[in-house]
């Protein structure tokens, strides 16, 4: 450990802190450095955890209840103060700064959104900017922008109260509120646990779209492994005491579970779960003629004759698909209308092939419209496309270097990578000697047999 103190100093001196506009990635790298949380004399809830969260990535914390995943999350914004260890965000040690100020710079989303029921939707979203003393107009503009981002029409929802919204809508407002001050880091604590499965699927897809636009660093706690596979760039599987069992990409974990614990946690059907890894946008999306309501019907028919198709998709004014119309129906109209449009299934381009196939089968249709960001029409996907794609799923994921994550107590080294994005690396030799030389308490805890003992806190 004495060797690495010099590195700390250089890292804190290197004030890149929270400057989002350096690259495309607006997120910040987070490092939990040898962090322990214990309550009294009981066994530590989180023990000697060192974990790097790479900038601009979504990292999922999964594990059984009581494994310390929520505790770990809450230590990042210091809602729970670590007993020992350091928390470093973009090279800046935030372990001792004012906790309230720290939390204003980190987005936080909890189950059911955690909206304040006595404030309107707009006021809820504007809470953090208001605390940061933005002027009124700027807050109002930002609020509308964020409600748009989470697919809620500001005109309709800005002045409503949370109780007037559905669970899914409340959750969206919760995400908008967390993003209000454009924080580089977003912490999400089982945010979609309290909504029905269909809403959850939609919220997950929206989160993927939002993240594709914003590139935040997202730390997401869930107990649902399928959700972790769907949303995560990286997954950390925790065991009791905050012990990392495996840290890898969803592909890596599904293809090569590190040990029996991980295998049990993934459950059966790991092969099938890999279907959940390919997204609609990764396969061929076919183009089909689509016309916006109000367009000239004759031109539309001419287009269809040219393309030699009998059906076309009708879009609303915001490019969202409404349904199918046939060429016959169009011939009878002067402008394209949606009155006789037939409903058809719609999937998001971030939906997994699993979800897409499911949607089509349930609707009894051999194809579905694909929508992108904010529900805009992209093309169509057919059952055949999905089946073809299944054949191509590779069993062996490519090797990628995993971020730092262990419970040995060894301290990682700072390595500023391309474009000034901070990352960390373990000095292999040092790691080995650290563990050997020191007969410190962690040696005992890193014993796998030890992890089956209870720890009281989640």
């Amino acid at each position, binding site marked *: 450990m004495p060797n690495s103190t010099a590195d700390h100093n250089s890292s804190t001196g290197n004030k890149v802190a929270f400057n989002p506009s350096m690259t495309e990635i607006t997120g910040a790298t987070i490092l939990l450095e040898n962090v322990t949380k214990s309550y009294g004399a009981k066994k530590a809830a989180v023990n000697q955890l060192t974990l790097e969260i790479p900038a601009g990535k979504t990292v999922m914390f999964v594990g059984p209840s009581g494994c310390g995943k929520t505790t770990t999350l809450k230590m990042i*914004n210091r*809602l729970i103060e670590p007993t020992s260890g350091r928390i470093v965000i973009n090279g800046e040690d935030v372990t001792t700064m004012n906790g*309230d*100020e*720290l*939390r*204003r*710079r980190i987005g*936080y989303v*909890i*189950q*059911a959104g*955690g*909206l*304040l*029921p*006595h*404030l*309107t939707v707009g006021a809820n979203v504007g*809470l*953090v900017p208001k*605390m940061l003393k933005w002027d009124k107009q700027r807050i109002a503009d930002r609020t509308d922008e964020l409600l748009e981002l989470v697919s809620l029409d500001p005109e309709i929802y800005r002045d409503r*109260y*949370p*109780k007037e919204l559905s669970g899914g809508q409340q959750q969206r407002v919760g995400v908008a*509120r*967390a993003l209000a001050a454009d924080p580089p880091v977003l*912490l999400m604590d089982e945010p979609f646990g309290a909504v029905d499965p269909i809403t959850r699927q939609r919220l997950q897809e929206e989160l993927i779209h939002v993240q594709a636009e914003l590139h935040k660093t997202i730390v997401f706690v869930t107990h649902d492994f399928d959700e972790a596979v769907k949303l995560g760039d990286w997954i950390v599987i925790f065991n009791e005491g905050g012990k990392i069992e495996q840290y890898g990409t969803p592909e890596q974990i599904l293809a090569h579970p590190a040990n029996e614990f991980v295998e049990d946690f993934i459950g059966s059907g790991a092969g099938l779960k890999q279907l959940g890894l390919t997204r609609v946008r990764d396969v061929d999306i076919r183009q089909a003629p689509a016309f916006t309501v109000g367009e000239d019907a004759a031109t539309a028919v001419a287009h269809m004759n040219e393309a030699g198709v009998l059906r076309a998709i009708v879009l609303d004014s915001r490019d969202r698909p409404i349904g199918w119309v046939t060429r016959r129906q169009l011939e009878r109209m002067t402008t394209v209308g949606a009155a006789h449009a037939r409903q058809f299934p719609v999937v998001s381009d971030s939906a997994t092939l699993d979800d897409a196939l499911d949607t089509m089968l349930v609707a009894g249709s051999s194809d579905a419209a694909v929508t992108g960001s904010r529900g805009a029409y992209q093309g169509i996907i057919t059952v055949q496309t999905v089946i073809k794609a299944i054949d191509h799923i590779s069993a062996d994921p490519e090797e990628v270097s995993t971020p730092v994550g262990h419970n040995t107590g060894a301290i990682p080294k700072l390595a500023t990578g391309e474009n000034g994005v901070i990352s960390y690396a373990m000095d292999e030799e040092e790691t080995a000697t650290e563990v050997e030389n020191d007969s410190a308490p962690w040696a005992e805890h890193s014993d796998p047999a030890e992890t089956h003992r209870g720890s009281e806190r989640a």
Partner: protein
Amino acid sequence: MGSYLSDRWPQILSASWQHFSLVAQCLLLATVIAIFIAALCYRSKTLSGVANSVSAVGLTIPSFALLGLMIAPLGFGVAPAVVVLTFYCLLPILRNALVGLAGVDRSLIEAARGIGMSSMETFFKVELPMAWPVILAGMRVSAQMTMGVAAISAYVLGPGLGSFIFSGLSRLGGANSFESVVTAVVAVVVIALILDGLLLLLGRLTISRGIRA
């Protein structure tokens, strides 16, 4: 009765206004004190328990006796009346404030802290507004209860309609004695209804539409 009223109308009006003003001001003072005490106590189970027991016991003290006891340290007039009234007002509001603050959903408080509100901001912007309807209900109970107590404050020569009741009762059977008592009683009831209406209106104006039942 008619001539009694028309002869003494100005006195009745001014006594009624004094009565109303005494109760309203004590209510305001008591609310501030009650919220302050509740804010100190609500996070601790022990302190909340103590505060609750004190307010329960306090309500059993006969107001007439307490007023009499206040004469020694505070003398006659407005001072003992205000102290005793504020004391009685305080108790129901304190109870409700404790219940209201304890009833705020923990996850809301954590959400507020999680987005960077200090514990002070959380109290004033989240916990207090959420507990406010319950506190206001306590204020309405207090207002009704102390309307009666305020009448007794005439015993220590306090302001209000009590003097009409005391003088009427002391010479019952004499000229206008009955009218004096009835007038004061009716006036107290009317004032009580007016104050209750005002508190209801206050609730309409200050309780967020988002948490109104």
